């Protein structure tokens, strides 16, 4: 008798209550426009988020000095080939550029020319 009543009461449950019980608890608290179809992430996808597969790769041994040096072989400074002789002073200079020696000489000359030459009265 009691079982019959229980079964009847179960079938007679309000549809809303039934629906809310069937869905997970968290989504029932959310308003419907935010997506009532939110699913609790499974364990596998959670693991993928926290420990992506790339992070599980790790070097086995410390890279040796020799191997490290070999990898850095291409990183050296390149030689400058555009060096020529300055026709003014004969020293080395960059092609198509001013000679720094000549320019500094001239610049100092002009600077000293600008200074007040103290004349004795």
């Amino acid at each position: 008798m009691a079982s019959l009543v229980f079964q009847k009461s179960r079938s007679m449950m309000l549809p809303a209550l039934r629906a809310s019980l069937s869905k997970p608890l968290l989504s029932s608290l959310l308003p419907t426009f935010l997506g009532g179809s939110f699913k609790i992430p499974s364990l596998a996808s959670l693991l993928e988020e926290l420990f992506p597969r790339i992070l599980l790769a790790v070097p086995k041994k410390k890279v040796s000095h020799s191997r490290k040096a070999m990898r850095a072989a291409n990183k050296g400074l390149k030689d400058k080939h555009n060096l020529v002789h300055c026709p003014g002073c004969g020293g080395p200079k960059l092609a198509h550029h001013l000679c720094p020696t000549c320019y500094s000489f001239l610049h100092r000359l002009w600077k000293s020319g600008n200074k007040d030459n103290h004349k004795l009265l």
Partner: protein
Amino acid sequence: MKHGVAFRKFSRTTSHRMLMLRNLVTSLFEHEQIKTTLPKARDTARLAEKIITLGKKGDRSAQMRASAFLLKPEVLPKLFGTFASRYAERPGGYTRIHKFGNRPGDNAPVAILELVDNPRDLRFEITARAIGREVLQDKLRTEKPINLIKTGVHSTQNIIETEKKLELGQTGMLRPKTRWNMQKMLRFRNQDAVSQLSRNVGNYIDHLMATPIAMKNLHDRERRKTVTGEFALRAGQTAPGDTRSVLDLSQGRLG
């Protein structure tokens, strides 16, 4: 690729960029030689030459436009006076850019922008040095250095006059490149430039001849300073009349 790009923007707004260029042009007219980055120099040269064209025109509208562009009224008489007369014969190309390496702070390529034929014309000075070096080399082929120092080199004016008239294929005392540079320097200038150039060449030849002697004198003076043998003073020792402090004495040769 740079297809169809009209001008550089310099990471600045239009008003900022224009003001920066106006400042650069005004500074160029004021000092006639400025050092800045290479792209800025190229854009400034372009604008400066247009303003100099206005200066050459000289009429009322040109004056109004130039005074609206330039930021210092002091350079206006220079523009309509000095530059107009200086560049009267020259058909354009009133500026020159010399590349000058890279700036240490940001490795930016730097250039010296100057007005052609200005009193401190860099090309003029360096050409004079090149001519001086080649003339001296030529003289040293026949004469001994000591004789050359005693007599000096006085024929620079004649050398320049003769080289000025030579054509492209002919051989002379100078290298073809140096001769061509010299001819370019003297093309739109008067006879004063020839005498100025010959004076600069003579000065540089004297400088070249004097440098080894000056170096030797310096070297001898330095060697004479160090006293060796029994009269050499050790650290801490004094000679009579020495008024140096104790710290100075204890430092000895380091001080």
